């Protein structure tokens, strides 16, 4: 489904990703961990198509399409969803209106008619229930005045509505208390299925107690330096990142 080969990217001449490789198959959940500044958010931004990052080398294949060739909106319409580390506020635009626009733009891209209003509302209700989203949040302005936890839950709700092939979660756990973390994780777990893949980016192991990954990768200095199964996350929790850093320095 997603195949990243030798990906190099920089911003303002600063090299951030230095030859990153990653294979994600349909239905798999990959966790990407790493110290602050390792390039985790950069990876998510490059995959989503943020314009300020320049890809200097490498390829990204998404379901047979050259992802790097697509505009950010087309990537989204093809099924890439990014849950932002810092969701953006848009005053005066309701969640409902925002999602209706997003869904209909995607349908247009697929050559479909806009969704019937009643179908849309029904879908809203179902997905709200699924991710335990508070109804009052959907009529309010997008993310405006939302608490940190509400913003993150809203990201998951949007993901549920847009039904992507690949969900990228960038530090969705940051700033959440334990209850919010549980709610968000349960939401994600309900969206897991045989077709849908996830890249779960996190600094802490805590989230992975709830969203149990198939694979764990350690990103350091713009490269994946270690991969393993869920137990690798536990090891990192106990030992921190220093031993990995040392390993990398020793090998270079």
């Amino acid at each position, binding site marked *: 489904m997603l195949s990243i080969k030798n990906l190099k990217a920089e911003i303002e001449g600063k090299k951030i990703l230095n030859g990153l490789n990653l294979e994600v198959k349909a239905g798999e959940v990959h966790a990407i961990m790493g110290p602050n500044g390792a390039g985790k958010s950069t990876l998510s931004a490059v995959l989503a198509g943020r314009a*300020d990052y320049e890809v200097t080398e490498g390829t990204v294949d998404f379901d047979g399409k050259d992802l790097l060739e697509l505009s950010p909106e087309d990537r989204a319409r093809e099924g890439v969803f990014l849950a932002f580390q810092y969701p*953006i506020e848009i005053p005066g635009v309701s969640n409902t209106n925002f999602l209706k626009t997003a869904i209909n733009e995607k349908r247009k891209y697929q050559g479909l008619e806009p969704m019937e209003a009643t179908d849309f509302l029904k879908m809203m209700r179902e997905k709200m229930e699924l991710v335990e989203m508070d109804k009052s949040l959907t009529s309010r302005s997008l993310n405006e005045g939302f608490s940190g936890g509400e913003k993150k839950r809203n990201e998951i709700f949007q993901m549920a509505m847009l039904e992507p092939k690949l969900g990228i979660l960038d530090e969705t756990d940051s700033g959440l208390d334990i209850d919010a973390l549980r709610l968000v994780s349960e939401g994600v777990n309900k969206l897991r299925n045989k077709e849908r893949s996830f890249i779960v980016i996190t600094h802490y192991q805590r989230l992975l107690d709830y969203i149990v990954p198939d694979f764990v990768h350690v990103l350091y200095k713009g490269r994946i330096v270690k991969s393993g199964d869920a137990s690798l996350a536990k090891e990192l929790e106990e030992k921190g990142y220093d031993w990995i850093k040392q390993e990398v320095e020793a090998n270079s």
Partner: protein
Amino acid sequence: MSDTQEVDIIDQVVSQEYKYGFTTDIEMDSAPMGLSEEIVRFISAKKNEPEWMLEWRLKAYRYWLTLEEPNWQNFKLAPIDYQKIIYYAAPKEKIKLDSLDQVDPELLKTFEKLGISLTEQKRLTGVAVDAVFDSVSIATTFKDQLAEKGVIFCAISEALHEHPELVKKYIGSVVPYTDNYFSALNAAVFSDGSFVYIPKGVRCPMELSTYFRINAENTGQFERTLIIADDNSYVSYLEGCTAPMRDENQLHAAVVELVAMEKAEIKYSTVQNWYPGDKDGKGGIYNFVTKRGSCEGAHSKISWTQVETGSAITWKYPSCILKGDYSNGEFFSVAVTNNMQQADTGTKMIHIGKNTKSRIVSKGISAGKSHNTYRGLVKVNKKAENARNHTQCDSMLIGSRSGAHTFPYLEISNNTATVEHEASTSKIGEDQIFYCNQRGIGTEEAIGLIVNGFCKEVLNQLPMEFAVEAQKLLAVSLEGSVG
């Protein structure tokens, strides 16, 4: 995000084609170019006006000659050559128009193209339309149905003949010709416009609407609208306007006067989409309009809503004179400028009666290299006990080469007044656009969404039929404002 990148992404601005820019090929009956007493007499004679009207025009003209163009505005204005303007242009009509069947089909087609159907079968349901083409009113729909309720809705030139006592009593009563340079000019040369009278206790059964179209070259449009709402009556009125694309600037200097008697309410909405000029600032309409309403009676209310997207220069301050005790004035405005457009707009709320109330909500959006100025006056007279005003003034910048300016003026002569002012400036960020993009929403759609969100409070004031149009218009006028 660095500033330079923001400039790169956000400033690949502006290429929207103005879709109302076509011209109508029709035989015109025009005054010779230029302005003189002769021209004033010519226009009055064309309209077959009573003597008092001509006298009034001539007084206005002579007064205008003593004035100089104002220069306090916050934009650059090349000198206007008033002798290079044609002050009267009308489609040649051989017969008096009694029904739409007699309207030149070219004209009907023009309005069809603009989305204004004047033919009885297809007319917008629930909206009566008066269509003004260059200097004359072409047709007014739904007249009979309105007449049943005693509502008068017709061209002002017609009202001069049918209801001279009303016109004589109120014309110039809210905006005297001595008010300013352009109101003097308008009084001298105005050619047509709409007239509305709502009798006591009548709630006008439908929206009234006038659609202004400038077509002829080198002409100015100087219409005059007069709306009188008698005691306990209500009317909602909407004006729309477009013009062909032409390389020279064209002057539009209208006057609108509203009179609200006791417990009457007038809601006046404008969706202004005059040709804004090309992206280098060539051509476009100068929209210099004097709009003022007088809340004459106690508990009366006047509400101005404007969505200003067109014109090379917009220069207007729809205002309320709150004479009646407990009267209420509102001003809701969205002004969008793109490319080289300039807008200096706002309102004046003059509190005279006791317990009067006013509310101002202004949303300015500037893109391209445009400049957008809010200028507003809140004046509370000595005897206006317990006056209240709330002003909210928000600016949004798109790109980094546009400008937003705010000039709120306060003149408070009564210490029981409560006056509040809030202001904000924001920028459509690349972050917001990227967030939308990531959800599958393209950049232009995203801007439309963000801008409509920003203007929601004002758009909500528009009659339903027009709110959707206005939303589309906002999106269209900013098309290309972000690359």
